[in-house]
């Protein structure tokens, strides 16, 4: 390996990056736009769930119950319907996710037998929202029931001070306020880095083939490993800049607590960038058409990184076979690493396992890429 040849390749690649200002601009703007769009858009917190009410009794009791729903910040009453078809239409049109139906004999049954019930009609197409919404509705109705019960007891002359024999005191570690932002933003950084990396390098070699400059490159004495390192070097620098933007936005703008060290972050991020850029490079070596390389790069990065990396969908809830497959998704390791560095303040020894996986990945990709390139020379 000669430094002079390496430098020549790197200079050529830098020139190529420089002469395509649009691609460069996209690469540098990507962290900002994506961090803002994803950072604010990716939220699982449910507030103001749209709810319809169908009060078939319209009594003091039923109104009091609905007042409880009105007061809850989890719900926003969007409509009071008067007929069953109107309610069906509201759910069908997704105007509301949940409808509270109070039966015409609500108070009567409450007075006669002391027990009464209301109905919650849920749009369960979105099962997660429906489940959580029902949980909140349950809490609202329990609150109402406790109020009515206390009222009745005190009217009977009982002094019932305590209604809850046991309380749950929960202490949350690592993400004290259970802010979904704190767990999602580090994942967003990983996703953006994976996308940028693949996008930067996956066309580098196929472009040379399509434009016919490959033959020129072959006729020079340059070695495959020199081409690889010379081509990846400039993109690694670009990747560092992008990573710095993303990480600074995460820590300073989105105020995700940063408990680790910059050194750990730098080492792991560099390793991840090498893997990501290397995969892109390998693809561009293997697939000689740019459209083919892009197609496969999209396939390997965008959806797997968002769906199989544990960035929002917990891996331990997936079927075993799919869990095994996630070991192949390199972003998975960086998602684990970056969350642990940010929230747990993990250091390199604590992250030994995912770092090792990334190292293996990086080595394998580099060796494969150098091999594949050699083959395509003859």
């Amino acid at each position, binding site marked *: 390996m000669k430094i002079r040849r390496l430098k020549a390749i790197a200079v050529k690649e830098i020139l190529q990056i420089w002469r*395509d200002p649009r691609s460069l601009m996209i690469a540098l703007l990507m962290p900002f736009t994506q961090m803002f769009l994803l950072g604010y858009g990716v939220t699982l917190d449910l507030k103001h769930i749209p709810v319809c009410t169908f009060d078939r009794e319209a009594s003091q009791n039923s109104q009091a119950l609905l007042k409880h729903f009105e007061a809850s910040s989890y719900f926003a009453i969007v409509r009071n319907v008067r007929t069953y078809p109107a309610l069906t239409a509201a759910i069908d049109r997704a105007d509301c996710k949940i409808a509270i139906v109070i039966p015409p004999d609500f108070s009567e049954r409450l007075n006669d037998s002391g027990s009464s019930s209301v109905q919650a009609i849920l749009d369960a197409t979105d099962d997660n929202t429906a489940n959580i919404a029902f949980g909140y509705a349950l809490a609202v109705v329990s609150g109402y029931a406790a109020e009515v019960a206390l009222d009745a*007891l005190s009217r009977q002359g009982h002094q019932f001070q305590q209604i809850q*024999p046991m309380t749950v005191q929960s202490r949350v570690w690592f993400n004290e306020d259970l802010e979904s932002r704190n767990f999602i933003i580090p994942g967003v950084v990983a996703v953006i880095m994976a996308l940028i990396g693949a996008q930067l390098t996956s066309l580098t070699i196929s472009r040379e083939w399509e434009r016919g400059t490959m033959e020129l490159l072959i006729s020079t004495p340059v070695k495959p490993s020199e081409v690889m390192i010379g081509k990846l070097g400039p993109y690694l620098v670009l990747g560092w800049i992008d990573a710095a933007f993303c990480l600074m936005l995460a820590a300073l703008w989105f105020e995700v607590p940063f408990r680790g060290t910059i050194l750990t972050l730098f080492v792991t991020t560099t390793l991840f960038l090498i893997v990501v850029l290397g995969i892109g490079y390998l693809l561009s070596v293997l697939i000689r058409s740019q459209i083919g390389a892009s197609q496969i790069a*999209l396939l390997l990065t965008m959806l797997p990184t*968002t769906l199989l990396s544990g960035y929002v969908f917990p891996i331990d809830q997936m079927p075993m076979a799919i869990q095994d497959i996630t070991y192949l998704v390199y972003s998975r390791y960086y998602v684990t690493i970056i969350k642990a560095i940010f929230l747990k303040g993990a250091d390199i020894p604590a992250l030994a396992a995912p770092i090792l996986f990334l190292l293996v990945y990086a080595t394998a990709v580099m060796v494969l890429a150098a091999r594949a390139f050699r083959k395509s020379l003859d």
Partner: protein
Amino acid sequence: MFGRITNMLIKEFIQLWRDKWGRFRLIAPPVIQLLLFGYAATFEVYHVPTAVLDLDRTQESRELVARFTSSNRLNIVRRAQTQDEIDAVIDRSDAAVALVIHAGFANLLRKGETAPLQVLVDGTNSNTALIALGYINTIAARFSQDYAADLAQRTLGIRGMTELIQVTIEQRPWYNPDFNGRWFFVPGVIATITLVMVVNLTAFAVVREREVGTLEQIMVSPIRPAEFILGKTVPFFVVGMGIAGLVTIVGILWFQIPFVGNPLVFVFGTMIYLLSLLALGLLISTVCATQQQAFATNFFVVNPLFTLSGFSFPISSMPDVLQWLTYINPLRYFLVVIRGTFLKGIGVGILWPDLLAMAAIAAVLLAISILRFRKSLE
């Protein structure tokens, strides 16, 4: 004119279908992705790894632990002996949740005072943590209620407060009675895969001609801009319908997702959706000079489209500005159409605003790209 378009169509089809590798790229990825992501995307939380520390060792504490053990939502992985052991278990992520019952728990209960149950939660994944806390609270509340009823009976001689006044809420989950997460996500994955594949294919179509230099050849031929656009879109429309049809059939047969709606409405909606995707791809290809640029733009555009669509993150929870942005996202509307026709069985009567919006997006984008293309010809 028809002769010219037909010739171009034939050329495009040949280009797409020529080699084995190209055919493989069209068929295998969507199916593999559907199978993977159909299983991976879920927010359901079961078998949360839980550690228990019972320092009280009384009948009451054992009864409480038994209630947690019998739930399939929690999975007791460790019965710890000391507080340090519990801390270590959470720190190493061996358990996501720990329940601690301190000495004196039963004494407090018997005296009628409030006894605390301490819960430690790993908040790194805030969604799982929230859902797990919800389960714990429900189980604890039931224990508490039962104990209160018991206490009321013993001390006040009434037949338990819960029997005195009771207001319950019954759930009626429509369209997805078992809260099956797959029913929600598989249609979404179908829509997303179609988006990623079709936009990329179309975006590269024109750019490649420009970069390779065949665009000039087409320019000197008597073909008109509108004919050229038509010749470029029709093949991808056919391919897109093929991809969408393939993943839909696999989705229905493999994942057993019910399809209760009118297939014609679904096909019609898919056609309009595809038009909007083709228009988007064409627009990207008219603003980009090289395939590298097209690829970068793709990542830049497609990832937010996917995230800000309601695929997994509820639009109603996003900040207002991002909610407005979703109105120009065709995926947002198609998700309503595909979930509506699959699960709700709703028709054009309810879906027309979404269909209209997609058609408008398609028309506007198509008009812009034809104008831009004409300009680049002059």
